[in-house]
């Protein structure tokens, strides 16, 4: 007999998928404006009984850095950050990310905030998980207009890091560094392979049978709702309230 599948929200599915992708590592760092990766990192820590270390950059509590803004980057350069998250205004089929602009650089049609740490962290963090909830031909393109950071590098370039996966609101892609190409790893419940093909601007590999993304189990849901959500409220009060019903304390 199987128990009835518990109900869950899309954010909970994405967080539990990302927690699986994090795997068994020593240190996960999460940048600004990343509530779902932050949920995933804290969930991974709960399930690992305190492993990995989690550094949430905006947090006072979940952030052990004491050497200023550079310490995150120095720590990554030393090989002491195993997992990081990047997004992009555009992401292409070779894993290149664009956080800068569309059109001419000095007079663009569209301008994004800027590259943040991507021009460095993509090269030195072994497992970079790309995360973009909007899965459309506007965001997932065949070729980015501007490469903030490339998905792969020539063999002589110092490169210990790069993308391992791309998680969207429709599916999970894995990245094959040698082929410079994504493969469809799973499709979220309620979505289909055809829909992913229709809304993806780049070509990707896929098996004849693509599995559904595993739903979060009851334990993961309990940990996210009871333990992780109150911790998130420190830096993502709106998210913690709208997804998990944590009351905002003024």
């Amino acid at each position, binding site marked *: 007999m199987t128990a009835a599948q518990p109900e869950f929200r899309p954010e909970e599915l994405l967080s539990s998928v990302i927690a699986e992708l994090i795997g068994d590592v020593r240190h996960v760092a999460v940048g600004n404006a990343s509530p779902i990766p932050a949920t995933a990192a804290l969930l991974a820590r709960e399930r690992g009984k305190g492993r990995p270390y989690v550094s949430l950059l905006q947090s006072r509590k979940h952030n052990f850095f004491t050497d200023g803004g550079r310490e995150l*980057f120095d720590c990554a350069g030393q090989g002491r950050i195993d997992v990081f998250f990047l997004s992009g205004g555009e992401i292409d089929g070779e894993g290149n990310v664009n956080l800068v602009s569309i059109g001419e650089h000095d007079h663009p049609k569209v301008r994004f905030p800027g590259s943040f740490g991507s021009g460095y962290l993509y090269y030195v963090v072994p497992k970079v998980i790309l995360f973009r909830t909007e899965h459309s031909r506007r965001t997932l393109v065949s070729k980015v207009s501007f490469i903030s950071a490339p998905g792969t590098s020539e063999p002589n370039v*110092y490169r210990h890091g790069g993308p391992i996966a791309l998680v969207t609101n429709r599916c999970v892609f894995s990245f094959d560094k040698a082929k410079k190409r994504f493969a469809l790893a799973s499709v979220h419940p309620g979505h289909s392979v055809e829909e992913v093909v229709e809304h993806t601007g780049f070509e990707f590999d896929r098996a004849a049978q693509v599995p559904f993304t595993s739903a979060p189990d009851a334990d993961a849901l309990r940990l996210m709702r009871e333990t992780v959500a109150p911790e998130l409220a420190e830096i993502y009060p709106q998210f913690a309230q709208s997804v998990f019903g944590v009351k905002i304390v003024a």
Partner: protein
Amino acid sequence: MAVIASTIESALEAIADGCTLAVPRENSGVAMEATRALIRRGIKNINLVALPTSSLQADLLIGAGCLASLETSAVSLGEFGAAPRFTAAMTSGTLTLKDSTCPALHAAFQASEKGIPFMPLRGLVGSDLTKHRPDWQFIDNPFGDNDPIVLLPAIKPDVALFHAPMADRSGNVWIGRQRELGTMAHASTKTIVTVEKIHDGDLLADPILAAGTLPGFYVDAVAVVPRGAWPLPLPDHYAADGEHLAEYARMAATPDGFQKYLAQHVHDRRAA
């Protein structure tokens, strides 16, 4: 030796039109009241360098027409969305921007801190950022073999400006764990700091406080400006004023709305 200025305006005198001004990231202690005072003064042609990102501060200075150029790795209002005046200036081609990446800015400030002309950095090979940075140079690692690495010229600002929790009467400034504020001061010719309050006593006398103190030796002027980072946060002291930032995002979405914001919150407001 630092001077405790009697007014914010007098503390800011060293920030002249056309200078290179270094400011910290949005959650590290941004001197927002000082920024409003500079806009009221009508400051012009500033080369702003954000270590390494900026939010409301850069957006206000761009919208008010105070900048000649901006060097940063990003400008955004975070959860309140894109920085509207930055975005408008970029898409209309009116802002000279040196696009960077966070550790490149940290490293270039560290070069000045050490008094050396450049700093090498990993990453950046194959990034389009380098196409727009003729000042960055690639060399083959002289200690390696066929190993391209980028060299970043030192950034040496004329003035560093930030807001901190407290200073003593000798101009020693307590920055706590916001160590990049120390790097900014070491790298810059002059440093101007606004603080929440004056600490009675010597910050360097107590080893626990001294470890988080920027010595007054590096500081040229201090002004007491309670809530001087508002509406941005001061770490460990007060949070961002989200309601105000949301209002800014709404008003600054149009040029007219931005001018109204300036009139209401910059020109009609004086330091407390």
